[in-house]
């Protein structure tokens, strides 16, 4: 637990995202646990394959979903699933902080080029909605993963995506996961999804990055 762990004590955190939040041992367990251990009230919702635009209005997922509240175990749906609009989640939870974990689903890894206009459309729709809600937010970008695999991930493309996100997720603060490890340092099962120990390491690195943000210092309960 980082020295500044108490920063999160009493904060209500809503975490949403893609497949990195939808299986046991992924960030819905590791990062969620880190937040809870520091005294945050945490609600995590993941829909596999979802991109930011899918969280503006309810959108059916294709490959599973999961949800977890506080210390309770997560409930996993192995296929299907539907997003809940971010405005509804914020209205229900009234979180102090929204944590978004998305990026790989914007990358078009198996296509010759990064589909930038589409990525901008999907991202800007979502960030406008978040901005209108006025809730503080942090966006966690994709990790290096490993090249190839089932998704044809490449270091070059994930760099493009992360660079795009860094300048397009405002008003959220961006956490560049590519700076949290060396290329290929965290092993994967399929190029994109990490092994359980690697998800543990990614969560720890994200946690440290979040509590170092001035934004989060400003939110800390006195």
């Amino acid at each position, binding site marked *: 637990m980082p020295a500044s762990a108490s920063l999160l004590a009493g904060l209500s955190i809503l975490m949403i995202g893609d497949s990195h939040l939808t299986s046991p041992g992924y960030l819905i367990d590791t990062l969620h646990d880190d937040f809870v251990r520091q005294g945050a009230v945490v609600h995590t919702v993941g829909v596999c394959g979802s991109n930011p635009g899918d969280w503006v209005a309810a959108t059916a997922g294709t*490959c*599973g979903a999961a949800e977890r509240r506080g210390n309770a175990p997560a409930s996993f749906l192995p296929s299907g699933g539907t997003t809940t609009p971010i405005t509804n989640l914020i209205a229900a939870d009234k979180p102090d902080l929204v944590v978004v974990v998305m990026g790989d689903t914007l990358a078009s890894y*198996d296509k010759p080029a990064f589909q930038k*206009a*589409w990525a901008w459309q999907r991202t800007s729709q979502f960030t406008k909605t978040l901005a209108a809600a006025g809730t503080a937010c942090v966006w966690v970008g994709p990790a290096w993963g490993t090249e190839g695999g089932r998704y044809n991930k490449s270091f070059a493309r994930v760099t493009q995506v992360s660079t795009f996100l860094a*300048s*397009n997720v405002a008003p959220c603060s961006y956490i560049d996961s590519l700076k949290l490890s060396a290329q290929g340092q965290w092993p994967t099962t399929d190029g994109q999804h990490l092994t359980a120990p690697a998800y543990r390491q990614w969560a720890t690195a994200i946690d440290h990055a979040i509590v170092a943000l001035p934004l989060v210092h400003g939110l800390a309960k006195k």
Partner: protein
Amino acid sequence: MMAAAALRRSLPFAARVAGALCILVAQAMAVPAGAVELYETGPAEDAAFLRFVNATGKALEVRPEGSGAKLALPPGQPASDFVAVHAGKALRGTVTLGKQSLATETTVQPGEFATVVVLGGPDGSLMQQTLRDSPDDFNAMKVTLVFYSLASQCEQASVQVAGRGIALFEQAATAVAPARRQVNPVPLAVQLACGGRPVGAPVDIGRLQAGGRYTLFAVPGVPVPVLFAVTDVLAP
């Protein structure tokens, strides 16, 4: 559930076991143990967008072919939103101004933001010009300004910060290629200049929004060219 139960009743035990094994094998082949089911990380091709801009100064309507819908573009609201369209497919429609009409057809390529500008010709007829932009500068912290110089009567068209003489766009050729730059989110009023001399009245755009995209059009006018600004908006 009911169908499965009926199947169980109708099949011999060996066949049911074989069927179950097939299902298990298929599932195992489809998704490795502990793996996430495969999903798309993007569409087959990039998004494409189309909008119409009314530069006639009079009320205009656009009717897409095969649709009863109509898009009204009054002088006070000269630009439609950018609407997501199928890339590579010809999009046809009719533009109407009073009793005049004009057939329009546009094919938008992947990654393109196409704008059909409807202009009044020198003889009062309707004209159209299709402008194509493939931006690569998306940035939620900056403001993007794009300028099109469509007025042939305005040579060496430039756009300045009104009242301050600071050039935003200098001596743009009369062309359909966009000139672009990024600026900070500040209040902005702009002034068209032709051949270095201010023409027409300043245009107050208001406070530019971070992440916002704005397009400036210099179009033919009587007695002088006209500059107007629109906010680029994506349809929901």
